[in-house]
């Protein structure tokens, strides 16, 4: 029974993905799309000379928001893991000053 489900899901996935691949190959090209706009109209649209910063902070602002919150989450996790060390250091700090 388990084997049947595995093969069934693989076959369904293969049929669906080949259908999507055939359909997507027929889509029009995006060569003159947003890339052209970013290259040509950066200064006109944002006023920033550095177009990389214009992309990071303006055209793809959501990406930067996610990046900064990845950093926030990483720091929060490190603080949770290393909190015990911090507490023990706070207790041991006075002994160090006496010595």
């Amino acid at each position, binding site marked *: 029974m388990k084997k049947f489900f595995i093969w069934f899901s693989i076959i369904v996935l293969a049929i669906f993905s080949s259908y999507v691949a055939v359909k997507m190959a027929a889509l029009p090209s995006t060569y003159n799309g947003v890339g052209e706009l970013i290259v040509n109209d950066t*200064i006109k*649209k*944002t*006023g*920033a*000379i*550095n177009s*990389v*910063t*214009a992309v*990071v*902070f*303006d055209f793809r*602002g*959501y990406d*930067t*928001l996610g*990046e*900064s*919150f990845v*950093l*926030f989450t990483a*720091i929060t996790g*490190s*603080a949770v893991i*290393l909190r015990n*060390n*911090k507490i*023990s*250091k706070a207790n*041991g*700090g006075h002994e*160090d*000053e006496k010595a």
Partner: protein
Amino acid sequence: MKKHNHNIKSKDCIVKCSANIVLPLALILGIYIILHGHLSPGGGFQGGVIIAGAVAIVYVAYGSKDTQRVFNAERFKISEDLGALGFIFIASLGIIYGTSFFKNVIYNQGQVGKLYSSGTIFWMNFAVGYKVLAGIGFLILIMVNTLKSSDKKE
């Protein structure tokens, strides 16, 4: 375990004097990179990490007790939250002005190529730089504390 692994002595004159020279230069370079993010290579993330390196420089030169005395971990935490909130506030200026989130609504302020130009990009650079310098500085401060407590166990 013997303790002659500590090959960099803190309070050593050479390390201390070179740190005194390098530290202001690193701070000024970081501030420059944050403020000129829309004009030259760099931006908030890179400049913030450079400024946060000041914590590591102070630790290498002056030892962990002085690092504790100089830097306030609580203030770092509050600064990071303020940076994140400021970033979201600047991003939601678009909603206040009546368009979409993250829309650059004040892009035509100032001259193109001058320091104060490009509207929200400048302020977002500043907010992200503040957030990153506080966050990475807090991370390095916590790691320094861990180093000290593992030294004590040996």
